[in-house]
């Protein structure tokens, strides 16, 4: 309880679907979703496996609270070995498909092998079958979604799919569900496409029962919902502005990476901010933002539903983009905007639509393009490479051209699909790639927020804000304010955030609840629903176990302490403006302390004592 207790194993090579019982012992140790699926992955694949070979596996997984009434309890994750980072990848998404999996009676789906022909998985409660996706191979996620809804005559069918970028081998392709929610990072969509698996379509009408103590659970759920409602960030800031509430704040503190992280403040930030999305356009007097939207069960509703101005050059002859769809979240707005120097909100929104439509990570895309523009600037990339297109910071035309080139997957568009690291290597300037472990940075400059430098460097899936969001403390004062410009205490802060995040990511709940909730709010909900006794301390320990398990996998995959670093630019080139002016990131001060706190050797390897304490073999 409250796991469904059932796993679907899909062997794509043989075209077979098998039902297995969930390993309940592992569920007690790893909770669910990120933790539990990663446990299955590390037990089942060779860490050295080529991520795009049939020997890699891909797991779609829910948490024990997915599908329940716990606020935000609709999350699911895609776990695999990443083709972008060669680390363990776990990309988390909201929307509705995770809850649908639980309603159909499944905790997770493990895909293995590779299908000879394009297929999709159709699940109707306990019935699962692989069907031909020949008709939609080579089409976008949106076209696939429409085709599947028609094919099964079911408007309630929940669909996750990969787009043309994944098929073309773009290394940061996403798995898109419910049209505009993304398991976005680390190229999990690329792995899915490499298996000739186009989509997963799920319908579940069985429901989620199996709650250990329903009355206790509902008390905890209602209390926790009230905490979200009463909190300024989750009750007001996020519903009103979405994560885009951060654009102006981060710019002001001088931590908004700009033009491939050459600068830390963007003069056009206010034009692409959450506030700007509310302003009426001059042309049609409609705001960019149509409404906010909630994922399954979410009482925060930070999601953005937006439109592009029909007269904007990016869509003027493309009526398929005139309706509303998933709008800009902060990270996407940053990567497509400040990092490329573009301050055209309509262009950013259109490009974001395309990222959803064809399934790739806007953070990695924007960041890769920013690197390409810098390569162009120094003459390493020329119009000969781009087929005549000039790449310049601040050019909305270049941004729109680039996203369409990527979807086509030809010429320089294919190069953009390599990601920043491989692109910069190909054109002879690896130092211009703003990545850790091959994954592009998100929207917080570690020169202005010191703790984030350590969080990026040690993240188990490469540069990422969602593995230890110390921004909460260093900028927003959650749970308590720390100075973003000091390094002292940041090792402990990063560790605490990393472990707590791993636990939240394993529960079925959304990380954004932690703007208001601590593990003390989450534990009673898990405890009300799940077999066993669940306290905040136990969740923190589960998180630490998960973190070390992921670390262990990465080490066995060939990574080492040398990979726990940042691009030279962030370590050597000082911030040129704002409160952090003159600062670099002092990773070298924080990293040894972090290793020690983790109970790792100075080489970053978990000691035997640490392993024993956490019950890792």
């Amino acid at each position, binding site marked *: 309880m409250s796991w469904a207790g059932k796993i679907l194993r899909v062997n794509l090579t043989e075209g077979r679907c098998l039902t297995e019982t969930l390993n309940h012992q592992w569920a007690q140790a790893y909770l669910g979703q990120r933790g539990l699926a990663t446990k299955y992955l590390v037990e089942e694949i060779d860490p050295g496996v080529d991520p795009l070979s049939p020997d890699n596996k891909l797991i779609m997984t829910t948490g024990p609270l997915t599908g329940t009434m716990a606020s935000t309890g609709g999350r699911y994750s895609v776990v695999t070995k990443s083709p972008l980072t060669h680390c363990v990848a776990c990309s988390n998404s909201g929307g509705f498909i995770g809850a649908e999996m639980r309603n159909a009676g499944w905790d997770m789906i493990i895909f293995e092998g590779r299908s000879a022909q394009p297929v999709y998985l159709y699940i109707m409660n306990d019935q699962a079958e692989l069907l031909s996706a020949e008709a939609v191979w080579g089409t976008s996620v949106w076209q696939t979604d*429409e085709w599947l*809804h*028609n*094919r*099964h*005559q*079911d*408007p309630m069918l929940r669909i996750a799919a990969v787009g043309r970028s994944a098929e073309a081998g773009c290394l940061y392709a996403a798995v898109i569900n419910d049209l505009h929610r993304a398991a976005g990072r680390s190229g999990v969509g690329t792995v899915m496409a490499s298996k000739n698996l186009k989509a997963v379509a799920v319908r579940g009408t069985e429901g989620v029962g199996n709650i250990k103590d329903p009355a206790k659970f509902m008390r905890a759920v209602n209390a926790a919902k009230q905490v979200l409602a009463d909190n300024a960030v989750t009750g007001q800031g996020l519903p009103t502005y979405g994560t885009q509430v951060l654009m102006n704040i981060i710019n002001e503190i001088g931590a908004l990476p700009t033009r491939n992280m050459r600068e830390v403040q963007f003069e056009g930030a206010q034009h692409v901010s959450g506030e700007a999305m509310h302003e009426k356009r001059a042309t049609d007097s409609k705001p960019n933002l149509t409404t906010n939207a909630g994922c399954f069960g979410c009482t925060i509703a930070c999601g953005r539903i937006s439109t592009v101005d029909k007269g904007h050059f990016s869509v003027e002859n493309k009526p398929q983009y005139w309706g509303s769809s998933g709008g800009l979240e902060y990270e996407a707005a940053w990567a497509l905007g400040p990092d490329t120097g573009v301050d055209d909100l309509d262009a950013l929104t259109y490009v974001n639509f395309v990222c959803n439509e064809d399934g790739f990570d806007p953070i990695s895309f924007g960041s890769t393009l920013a690197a390409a523009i810098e390569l162009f600037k120094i003459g390493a990339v020329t119009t000969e490479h781009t087929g005549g297109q000039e790449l310049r910071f601040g050019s909305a035309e270049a941004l729109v051209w680039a996203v369409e080139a990527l979807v086509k997957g030809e010429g320089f568009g294919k190069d953009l699909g390599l990601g920043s690291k491989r692109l910069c290597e190909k054109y002879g300037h690896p130092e211009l790639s703003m990545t850790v472990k091959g994954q592009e940075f998100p929207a917080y400059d570690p020169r202005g927020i010191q703790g984030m430098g350590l969080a990026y460097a040690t993240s188990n899936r490469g540069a990422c804000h969602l593995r230890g969001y110390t921004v909460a403390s260093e900028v927003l004062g959650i749970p308590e304010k720390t100075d973003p410009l000091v390094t002292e205490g940041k090792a402990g802060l990063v560790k605490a955030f990393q472990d707590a995040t791993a636990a939240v990511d394993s529960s079925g709940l959304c990380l954004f609840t932690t703007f208001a909730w601590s593990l003390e709010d989450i534990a009673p909900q898990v405890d009300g629903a799940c077999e066993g006794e669940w306290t905040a301390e136990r969740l923190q320990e589960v998180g630490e176990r998960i973190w070390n398990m992921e670390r262990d996998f990465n080490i066995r995959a060939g990574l080492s302490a040398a990979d726990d670093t940042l691009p030279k630019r962030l370590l050597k080139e000082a911030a040129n403006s704002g409160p952090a002016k003159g600062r670099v990131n002092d990773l070298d001060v924080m990293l040894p302390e972090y290793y020690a706190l983790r109970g790792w050797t100075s080489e970053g390897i978990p000691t035997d004592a640490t392993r024993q304490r956490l019950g890792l073999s």
Partner: protein
Amino acid sequence: MHHIVIGAGPAGVTACDTIRDLDPSARITLIGGESEPPYSRMAIPYLLVEDIDEQGTYLRKSESHYSERRIELLQEGVTGVNPQHRSVTLARGDTLVFDRLLIASGATPVKPPIPGIDSPGVHSCWTLADARAIIERAKPGVPVVLIGAGFIGCIILEALVERDVQLTVVEKADRMVPRMLDEVAGSLIKAWCEDRGVTIVTNSGVAGIEKDHGGLTVNLENGDNLPAGLVITAVGVTPNIAFLAGSGLDIDQGVLVNAHLETNQSGIFAAGDVAQARDYSTGGYSVQAIQPTAVEHGRIAASNMVSGESVVHQGSLNMNILDTLGLISASFGQWMGVEGGESSVLLDEARHRYLKLQFDGEYLIGAGCLGHTQHIGVLRGLIRGRVPLGEWKGRLMKDPTRLMEAYLGSVLGVS
């Protein structure tokens, strides 16, 4: 004012309740020809599988419903109606005088003209008495032949399968439920039934039924001979109008009524399976013989009986819903479409899902579906409400499953 209602089915009982609601002082007499309290024929299949007992089929569950509402219930046949004398003649010979009369005498199964049709062991499935006889004979393993795969045949079909008999269905037409669904749907239902062990013979009538030692043999027109322990006929129903011969009432297929559900004789109304009334879709007059129409007729006729010609019957929408061994099908209005109209179709044969919408301009006029059960009432709302679909027409042409959104969008103006 004395209201007499002939027929204790849904139309008659609804009419009596409506009269009482509108006129607390009226005298109401309800005459039913069977010995049980008024019951629903639609519930008989559920009685056959013993989901409910006989009481579960009753139209009103409270034993004192009729006495409480001062509805005098007579269980007696009616042999004649005399409009001039404002009287009704009962089987036992006496007459009752009315101020207003409602003829809701329902229908009777058609007895097909087949040699041997009166043999013991051959039944229709229409009354509680029929149901008792069928329960007696339909034992596990017994070969049963069901003649007719129309709507009524199909609702009995499921009950027979659940009783574990060895079932063969014989249908003269080229498919199942030919008057409710098109060939695609009818064929899918047939395949569905065959997958579940039922033998379906289409395109064949029955030549004769022979009695042999211990049972019956059903000889088909196609030459096959089927042994049977029980034969059930369900080839359609016909309005109960024989007792109206010589009454002077206008009668075609059923009792013809005008826009107030009144017959050509003032103060005499007709409702339900016996009434030939306006069909919403075609504008013509026909006998629909379906439960929702019977209730609608009963209610409207009763209003007009109480307070003159106060309510106009705009025509009832023909519609049906059927559960054939778990495969649910439904049809509404002009499911076959109209000339110059357009249709939108989705078909998934492997999963027995089918949805077909019929349009005339920007209006939905009919629909048929298989495997769709959620929110299908809006098909009635869209058709009968004559909701102008506007831009939703195009969207439904592209994806007919977006019905509920089309309804909300068109009616609530969401888009």
